[in-house]
Protein backbone atom coordinates (compact mmCIF):
# COMPACT_ATOMS: atom_id res chain seq x y z
CA UNK A 1 0.00 0.00 0.00
CA UNK A 2 1.47 3.30 -0.97
CA UNK A 3 0.77 6.15 1.36
CA UNK A 4 1.88 9.75 1.60
CA UNK A 5 4.28 10.55 4.38
CA UNK A 6 7.32 8.91 5.84
CA UNK A 7 5.77 5.47 6.40
CA UNK A 8 7.20 4.13 3.18
CA UNK A 9 10.07 6.34 2.16
CA UNK A 10 11.34 4.09 -0.61
CA UNK A 11 8.22 4.33 -2.69
CA UNK A 12 7.89 8.07 -2.21
CA UNK A 13 11.52 8.51 -3.20
CA UNK A 14 10.78 6.81 -6.48
CA UNK A 15 7.76 9.03 -7.09
CA UNK A 16 9.93 12.07 -6.47
CA UNK A 17 12.76 10.71 -8.60
CA UNK A 18 10.60 9.99 -11.64
CA UNK A 19 8.06 12.78 -11.18
CA UNK A 20 10.04 15.41 -13.09
CA UNK A 21 10.40 13.07 -16.07
CA UNK A 22 6.65 12.61 -16.28
CA UNK A 23 6.14 16.33 -15.81
CA UNK A 24 8.50 17.07 -18.66
CA UNK A 25 6.51 14.84 -21.00
CA UNK A 26 3.16 16.31 -20.08
CA UNK A 27 1.14 17.03 -23.21
CA UNK A 28 3.26 14.81 -25.44
CA UNK A 29 1.53 12.34 -27.75
CA UNK A 30 2.72 9.19 -29.43
CA UNK A 31 4.75 10.04 -32.51
CA UNK A 32 3.28 7.84 -35.21
CA UNK A 33 6.08 7.55 -37.71
CA UNK A 34 7.67 4.25 -38.72
CA UNK A 35 10.44 3.56 -36.21
CA UNK A 36 11.52 7.15 -35.58
CA UNK A 37 13.94 5.88 -32.95
CA UNK A 38 15.67 2.56 -32.48
CA UNK A 39 18.54 1.16 -30.46
CA UNK A 40 21.50 0.59 -32.74
CA UNK A 41 23.93 -0.45 -30.02
CA UNK A 42 23.35 -1.61 -26.45
CA UNK A 43 20.18 -2.78 -24.73
CA UNK A 44 17.17 -0.64 -23.84
CA UNK A 45 13.54 -0.08 -24.78
CA UNK A 46 12.63 3.13 -26.54
CA UNK A 47 9.57 4.98 -27.72
CA UNK A 48 8.93 8.41 -29.22
CA UNK A 49 6.47 11.09 -28.14
CA UNK A 50 5.94 14.42 -29.80
CA UNK A 51 4.91 17.55 -28.01
CA UNK A 52 2.47 19.12 -30.45
CA UNK A 53 3.69 22.19 -32.26
CA UNK A 54 3.16 25.23 -30.14
CA UNK A 55 1.29 27.64 -32.36
CA UNK A 56 2.00 30.51 -30.02
CA UNK A 57 5.50 29.55 -29.08
CA UNK A 58 7.89 32.21 -27.83
CA UNK A 59 10.29 33.61 -30.44
CA UNK A 60 13.40 31.48 -30.67
CA UNK A 61 11.88 28.44 -29.02
CA UNK A 62 12.12 25.05 -30.64
CA UNK A 63 9.29 24.25 -32.97
CA UNK A 64 8.94 20.67 -31.84
CA UNK A 65 10.10 18.68 -28.86
CA UNK A 66 10.49 14.98 -29.40
CA UNK A 67 10.67 12.96 -26.19
CA UNK A 68 12.33 9.57 -26.23
CA UNK A 69 11.99 7.45 -23.10
CA UNK A 70 15.04 5.18 -23.00
CA UNK A 71 14.33 2.62 -20.31
CA UNK A 72 14.93 -0.89 -19.02
CA UNK A 73 18.64 -0.69 -19.74
CA UNK A 74 21.42 -1.95 -17.53
CA UNK A 75 22.44 0.52 -14.81
CA UNK A 76 25.56 2.40 -15.80
CA UNK A 77 25.46 1.30 -19.41
CA UNK A 78 25.29 3.36 -22.59
CA UNK A 79 23.27 2.92 -25.74
CA UNK A 80 23.39 4.37 -29.21
CA UNK A 81 20.12 5.55 -30.64
CA UNK A 82 19.26 5.95 -34.29
CA UNK A 83 16.90 8.83 -34.86
CA UNK A 84 15.03 8.94 -38.13
CA UNK A 85 12.98 12.09 -38.33
CA UNK A 86 10.67 13.05 -41.14
CA UNK A 87 8.98 16.08 -42.56
CA UNK A 88 6.40 16.06 -39.80
CA UNK A 89 9.01 17.53 -37.49
CA UNK A 90 10.73 19.65 -40.12
CA UNK A 91 13.48 17.21 -40.96
CA UNK A 92 12.80 16.50 -44.60
CA UNK A 93 15.78 18.01 -46.32
CA UNK A 94 18.61 16.94 -44.06
CA UNK A 95 21.32 19.08 -42.64
CA UNK A 96 19.18 20.36 -39.80
CA UNK A 97 20.77 20.64 -36.42
CA UNK A 98 19.04 20.02 -33.15
CA UNK A 99 19.74 20.09 -29.47
CA UNK A 100 19.69 16.89 -27.46
CA UNK A 101 19.25 16.85 -23.72
CA UNK A 102 18.62 14.13 -21.17
CA UNK A 103 16.88 14.02 -17.82
CA UNK A 104 17.72 11.22 -15.45
CA UNK A 105 15.54 10.09 -12.55
CA UNK A 106 16.61 11.25 -9.16
CA UNK A 107 18.71 14.16 -10.30
CA UNK A 108 16.26 16.80 -9.14
CA UNK A 109 15.94 18.30 -5.73
CA UNK A 110 12.74 17.55 -3.84
CA UNK A 111 9.70 17.76 -6.07
CA UNK A 112 11.31 20.37 -8.32
CA UNK A 113 12.12 19.84 -11.95
CA UNK A 114 15.27 17.91 -12.58
CA UNK A 115 17.62 19.83 -14.84
CA UNK A 116 18.02 18.87 -18.44
CA UNK A 117 21.61 17.97 -19.19
CA UNK A 118 22.60 19.05 -22.66
CA UNK A 119 24.38 16.64 -24.94
CA UNK A 120 26.21 17.97 -27.95
CA UNK A 121 24.23 19.44 -30.80
CA UNK A 122 23.63 16.88 -33.52
CA UNK A 123 23.16 17.17 -37.25
CA UNK A 124 20.70 15.16 -39.28
CA UNK A 125 22.07 13.60 -42.43
CA UNK A 126 19.22 12.60 -44.69
CA UNK A 127 16.90 12.83 -41.72
CA UNK A 128 18.99 10.33 -39.74
CA UNK A 129 21.26 10.89 -36.76
CA UNK A 130 22.96 8.72 -34.18
CA UNK A 131 23.15 9.77 -30.56
CA UNK A 132 25.13 8.06 -27.83
CA UNK A 133 23.45 8.19 -24.45
CA UNK A 134 24.76 7.13 -21.01
CA UNK A 135 21.80 5.70 -19.12
CA UNK A 136 22.85 6.55 -15.58
CA UNK A 137 22.53 4.58 -12.38
CA UNK A 138 18.92 3.50 -12.92
CA UNK A 139 19.32 2.39 -16.51
CA UNK A 140 16.70 4.77 -17.82
CA UNK A 141 16.08 8.40 -18.74
CA UNK A 142 14.11 10.66 -20.99
CA UNK A 143 15.86 12.19 -23.97
CA UNK A 144 14.57 15.39 -25.49
CA UNK A 145 15.24 16.39 -29.08
CA UNK A 146 14.53 20.05 -29.77
CA UNK A 147 14.33 20.72 -33.46
CA UNK A 148 15.29 24.19 -34.56
CA UNK A 149 12.76 26.33 -36.33
CA UNK A 150 12.38 25.47 -39.95
CA UNK A 151 14.13 27.89 -42.25
CA UNK A 152 12.40 27.16 -45.54
CA UNK A 153 8.80 27.18 -44.41
CA UNK A 154 7.76 30.62 -43.14
CA UNK A 155 5.48 30.60 -40.16
CA UNK A 156 2.28 32.63 -40.21
CA UNK A 157 3.39 33.82 -36.79
CA UNK A 158 6.38 35.80 -38.01
CA UNK A 159 7.14 38.74 -35.81
CA UNK A 160 8.16 41.00 -38.67
CA UNK A 161 6.07 44.13 -38.22
CA UNK A 162 6.42 45.08 -41.86
CA UNK A 163 4.39 42.00 -42.83
CA UNK A 164 1.69 42.38 -40.22
CA UNK A 165 -1.77 42.05 -41.73
CA UNK A 166 -0.47 41.39 -45.25
CA UNK A 167 -0.30 38.13 -47.10
CA UNK A 168 2.98 36.34 -46.60
CA UNK A 169 4.57 36.27 -50.08
CA UNK A 170 5.72 32.70 -49.55
CA UNK A 171 2.49 31.24 -48.24
CA UNK A 172 -0.17 33.76 -49.29
CA UNK A 173 -1.39 33.60 -45.70
CA UNK A 174 -2.23 36.79 -43.87
CA UNK A 175 0.36 37.23 -41.20
CA UNK A 176 -0.73 37.67 -37.62
CA UNK A 177 1.52 38.65 -34.80
CA UNK A 178 1.58 36.79 -31.55
CA UNK A 179 0.13 39.91 -29.94
CA UNK A 180 -3.04 39.42 -31.94
CA UNK A 181 -3.77 36.43 -29.77
CA UNK A 182 -2.77 37.98 -26.47
CA UNK A 183 0.18 35.66 -26.20
CA UNK A 184 1.77 35.70 -22.80
CA UNK A 185 -0.77 37.93 -21.16
CA UNK A 186 -2.90 36.22 -18.52
CA UNK A 187 -6.59 36.77 -18.93
CA UNK A 188 -6.48 37.29 -22.64
CA UNK A 189 -7.90 34.84 -25.10
CA UNK A 190 -6.30 31.46 -25.35
CA UNK A 191 -5.76 29.72 -28.63
CA UNK A 192 -8.60 27.35 -27.87
CA UNK A 193 -11.09 30.15 -27.60
CA UNK A 194 -9.96 32.16 -30.55
CA UNK A 195 -9.09 29.52 -33.25
Amino acid at each position, binding site marked *: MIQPGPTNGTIEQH*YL*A*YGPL*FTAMRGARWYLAPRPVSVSSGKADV*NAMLLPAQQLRPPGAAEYDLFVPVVNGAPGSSVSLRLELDAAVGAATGGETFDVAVMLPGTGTGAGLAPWRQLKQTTLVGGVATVSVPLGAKG*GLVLKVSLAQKKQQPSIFKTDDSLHGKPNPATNVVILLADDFGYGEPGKRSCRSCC
Partner: protein
Amino acid sequence: MDPAEHNFQQLLVEQAALHVERLPAFEGIAVDRLDYSEYYNLDADDGVCWVPCPPNGANCRSKSAETEASSSAGAGGNWTGGFGPARSLRLSYRDTFRRIGKEVLHKDNAARVMAMNCNVLCRIDQIESFDLTFSEGSSLNGVAWTGLAMPTILWTYSLSGKSDASLDAFFQQHLLMNVFPSAPMPKNGNQTHLLRCRVLAARDADSFFHQIT
Protein backbone atom coordinates in the same frame (compact mmCIF):
# COMPACT_ATOMS: atom_id res chain seq x y z
CA MET B 1 -29.54 0.54 -19.00
CA ASP B 2 -29.29 1.76 -22.56
CA PRO B 3 -28.27 5.42 -22.51
CA ALA B 4 -29.59 5.90 -26.01
CA GLU B 5 -33.15 5.54 -24.73
CA HIS B 6 -34.36 9.08 -25.24
CA ASN B 7 -35.69 9.84 -21.77
CA PHE B 8 -32.71 8.31 -20.01
CA GLN B 9 -30.24 10.06 -22.25
CA GLN B 10 -32.03 13.35 -21.72
CA LEU B 11 -31.83 12.80 -17.96
CA LEU B 12 -28.07 12.24 -18.14
CA VAL B 13 -27.54 15.37 -20.22
CA GLU B 14 -29.71 17.41 -17.87
CA GLN B 15 -27.83 16.10 -14.83
CA ALA B 16 -24.56 17.26 -16.33
CA ALA B 17 -26.11 20.64 -17.13
CA LEU B 18 -27.34 20.98 -13.54
CA HIS B 19 -23.83 20.41 -12.24
CA VAL B 20 -22.55 23.21 -14.44
CA GLU B 21 -25.39 25.48 -13.47
CA ARG B 22 -25.40 24.92 -9.70
CA LEU B 23 -21.81 24.15 -8.79
CA PRO B 24 -19.76 27.27 -9.45
CA ALA B 25 -16.44 25.45 -9.20
CA PHE B 26 -17.55 22.37 -11.13
CA GLU B 27 -14.64 21.15 -13.24
CA GLY B 28 -15.93 18.05 -14.95
CA ILE B 29 -16.84 14.40 -14.66
CA ALA B 30 -15.20 11.00 -14.62
CA VAL B 31 -17.17 8.22 -16.28
CA ASP B 32 -16.58 4.99 -14.42
CA ARG B 33 -16.07 1.92 -16.64
CA LEU B 34 -16.53 1.46 -20.32
CA ASP B 35 -16.87 -2.30 -20.26
CA TYR B 36 -20.66 -2.21 -19.88
CA SER B 37 -20.86 -0.82 -23.38
CA GLU B 38 -20.19 -4.33 -24.67
CA TYR B 39 -23.82 -5.36 -24.06
CA TYR B 40 -26.71 -5.25 -26.51
CA ASN B 41 -30.21 -3.91 -26.12
CA LEU B 42 -32.41 -6.60 -27.62
CA ASP B 43 -35.44 -4.31 -27.57
CA ALA B 44 -33.98 -1.85 -30.04
CA ASP B 45 -32.54 -1.94 -33.53
CA ASP B 46 -29.53 0.10 -34.59
CA GLY B 47 -29.84 -1.12 -38.15
CA VAL B 48 -26.53 -2.93 -37.99
CA CYS B 49 -26.44 -5.57 -35.25
CA TRP B 50 -27.81 -9.05 -35.70
CA VAL B 51 -27.21 -11.09 -32.59
CA PRO B 52 -28.27 -14.30 -30.85
CA CYS B 53 -31.36 -13.88 -28.73
CA PRO B 54 -33.72 -16.03 -26.62
CA PRO B 55 -36.32 -17.65 -28.89
CA ASN B 56 -39.14 -16.12 -26.85
CA GLY B 57 -37.75 -12.61 -27.15
CA ALA B 58 -40.06 -10.00 -28.65
CA ASN B 59 -37.82 -9.26 -31.61
CA CYS B 60 -36.19 -12.62 -31.85
CA ARG B 61 -36.63 -14.47 -35.07
CA SER B 62 -36.30 -18.16 -35.65
CA LYS B 63 -33.32 -19.51 -37.35
CA SER B 64 -33.69 -19.30 -41.06
CA ALA B 65 -32.43 -21.96 -43.38
CA GLU B 66 -29.67 -19.59 -44.30
CA THR B 67 -28.65 -19.14 -40.67
CA GLU B 68 -28.84 -22.88 -40.14
CA ALA B 69 -26.44 -23.35 -42.99
CA SER B 70 -23.97 -20.83 -41.64
CA SER B 71 -24.39 -22.30 -38.17
CA SER B 72 -23.50 -25.74 -39.35
CA ALA B 73 -20.47 -24.17 -40.97
CA GLY B 74 -19.38 -22.82 -37.64
CA ALA B 75 -20.58 -19.22 -37.80
CA GLY B 76 -23.40 -19.78 -35.31
CA GLY B 77 -21.61 -22.21 -33.08
CA ASN B 78 -23.87 -24.36 -30.93
CA TRP B 79 -26.47 -21.67 -30.43
CA THR B 80 -29.92 -23.22 -30.61
CA GLY B 81 -31.96 -20.08 -30.15
CA GLY B 82 -32.82 -17.45 -32.66
CA PHE B 83 -31.23 -14.35 -34.04
CA GLY B 84 -32.56 -10.86 -34.22
CA PRO B 85 -31.87 -7.13 -34.39
CA ALA B 86 -30.38 -5.25 -31.46
CA ARG B 87 -28.69 -2.01 -30.56
CA SER B 88 -25.06 -2.12 -29.55
CA LEU B 89 -24.50 -0.10 -26.41
CA ARG B 90 -21.23 1.00 -27.94
CA LEU B 91 -23.27 3.24 -30.19
CA SER B 92 -25.50 4.28 -27.30
CA TYR B 93 -22.58 5.22 -25.07
CA ARG B 94 -20.79 7.07 -27.85
CA ASP B 95 -23.85 9.10 -28.75
CA THR B 96 -24.52 9.99 -25.12
CA PHE B 97 -20.91 10.99 -24.45
CA ARG B 98 -21.02 13.16 -27.55
CA ARG B 99 -24.13 14.96 -26.35
CA ILE B 100 -22.81 15.53 -22.83
CA GLY B 101 -19.59 16.88 -24.27
CA LYS B 102 -20.95 19.10 -27.01
CA GLU B 103 -24.09 20.32 -25.29
CA VAL B 104 -22.75 20.76 -21.77
CA LEU B 105 -19.18 20.22 -20.68
CA HIS B 106 -17.33 21.47 -23.75
CA LYS B 107 -19.97 23.92 -24.85
CA ASP B 108 -18.46 27.24 -25.95
CA ASN B 109 -15.00 25.70 -25.53
CA ALA B 110 -15.41 25.57 -21.77
CA ALA B 111 -12.42 24.11 -19.99
CA ARG B 112 -14.25 21.28 -18.23
CA VAL B 113 -12.90 17.79 -18.12
CA MET B 114 -14.48 14.58 -19.29
CA ALA B 115 -12.42 11.71 -17.93
CA MET B 116 -12.94 8.01 -18.57
CA ASN B 117 -12.06 4.94 -16.58
CA CYS B 118 -12.13 2.49 -19.43
CA ASN B 119 -11.37 -0.42 -17.07
CA VAL B 120 -10.42 -3.43 -19.16
CA LEU B 121 -11.89 -2.07 -22.36
CA CYS B 122 -10.03 0.82 -23.94
CA ARG B 123 -11.54 1.42 -27.36
CA ILE B 124 -10.27 4.30 -29.45
CA ASP B 125 -13.69 4.71 -31.04
CA GLN B 126 -15.30 5.31 -27.64
CA ILE B 127 -13.13 8.13 -26.41
CA GLU B 128 -13.61 10.88 -28.95
CA SER B 129 -15.55 13.03 -26.48
CA PHE B 130 -13.07 12.65 -23.63
CA ASP B 131 -10.15 14.75 -22.51
CA LEU B 132 -8.24 12.09 -20.62
CA THR B 133 -8.48 8.53 -19.41
CA PHE B 134 -8.04 7.56 -15.77
CA SER B 135 -8.24 3.82 -15.78
CA GLU B 136 -8.17 0.98 -13.32
CA GLY B 137 -6.69 -2.43 -13.85
CA SER B 138 -3.20 -3.53 -14.71
CA SER B 139 -3.31 -3.41 -18.47
CA LEU B 140 -0.62 -0.77 -18.88
CA ASN B 141 -0.01 -1.36 -22.57
CA GLY B 142 -3.75 -1.60 -23.20
CA VAL B 143 -4.65 1.76 -21.72
CA ALA B 144 -1.58 3.34 -23.31
CA TRP B 145 -3.31 3.42 -26.67
CA THR B 146 -5.61 6.14 -25.46
CA GLY B 147 -2.44 8.22 -25.21
CA LEU B 148 -2.56 8.59 -28.97
CA ALA B 149 -5.06 11.34 -28.38
CA MET B 150 -5.08 12.39 -24.76
CA PRO B 151 -3.30 12.13 -21.41
CA THR B 152 -3.49 8.66 -19.91
CA ILE B 153 -3.40 7.84 -16.21
CA LEU B 154 -3.42 4.35 -14.71
CA TRP B 155 -4.32 3.67 -11.11
CA THR B 156 -1.45 2.55 -8.97
CA TYR B 157 -2.19 -0.38 -6.71
CA SER B 158 0.05 -1.61 -3.95
CA LEU B 159 3.75 -1.07 -4.40
CA SER B 160 4.59 -2.38 -0.94
CA GLY B 161 7.42 -4.83 -0.75
CA LYS B 162 8.79 -4.08 -4.17
CA SER B 163 12.54 -3.84 -4.51
CA ASP B 164 14.32 -0.78 -5.85
CA ALA B 165 14.79 -2.54 -9.16
CA SER B 166 11.09 -3.44 -9.36
CA LEU B 167 10.08 0.13 -8.58
CA ASP B 168 12.43 1.39 -11.28
CA ALA B 169 10.89 -1.05 -13.73
CA PHE B 170 7.39 0.07 -12.71
CA PHE B 171 8.06 3.74 -13.35
CA GLN B 172 10.17 3.19 -16.45
CA GLN B 173 7.51 1.06 -18.11
CA HIS B 174 5.02 3.88 -17.49
CA LEU B 175 7.46 6.34 -19.07
CA LEU B 176 7.94 4.05 -22.04
CA MET B 177 4.21 3.90 -22.70
CA ASN B 178 3.53 7.56 -21.84
CA VAL B 179 1.13 6.54 -19.08
CA PHE B 180 1.09 8.53 -15.87
CA PRO B 181 0.88 6.51 -12.64
CA SER B 182 -1.69 7.87 -10.22
CA ALA B 183 -0.35 9.65 -7.17
CA PRO B 184 -0.03 7.85 -3.84
CA MET B 185 -3.15 8.01 -1.72
CA PRO B 186 -4.26 6.23 1.44
CA LYS B 187 -6.45 3.18 1.03
CA ASN B 188 -6.21 2.79 -2.72
CA GLY B 189 -9.78 2.14 -3.63
CA ASN B 190 -11.83 3.44 -6.46
CA GLN B 191 -9.64 6.31 -7.51
CA THR B 192 -12.28 8.10 -9.50
CA HIS B 193 -12.96 9.40 -5.97
CA LEU B 194 -9.81 11.43 -6.42
CA LEU B 195 -11.40 13.29 -9.26
CA ARG B 196 -14.68 13.53 -7.38
CA CYS B 197 -12.91 15.10 -4.41
CA ARG B 198 -11.25 17.55 -6.75
CA VAL B 199 -14.55 18.48 -8.31
CA LEU B 200 -16.24 18.92 -4.98
CA ALA B 201 -13.39 20.75 -3.32
CA ALA B 202 -15.11 24.09 -3.57
CA ARG B 203 -16.52 25.78 -0.52
CA ASP B 204 -20.16 24.86 0.07
CA ALA B 205 -19.84 21.98 -2.36
CA ASP B 206 -21.75 19.67 -0.06
CA SER B 207 -24.75 21.93 0.16
CA PHE B 208 -24.83 22.36 -3.58
CA PHE B 209 -24.54 18.62 -4.01
CA HIS B 210 -27.51 17.97 -1.72
CA GLN B 211 -29.59 20.56 -3.51
CA ILE B 212 -29.36 18.73 -6.80
CA THR B 213 -29.63 15.17 -5.53
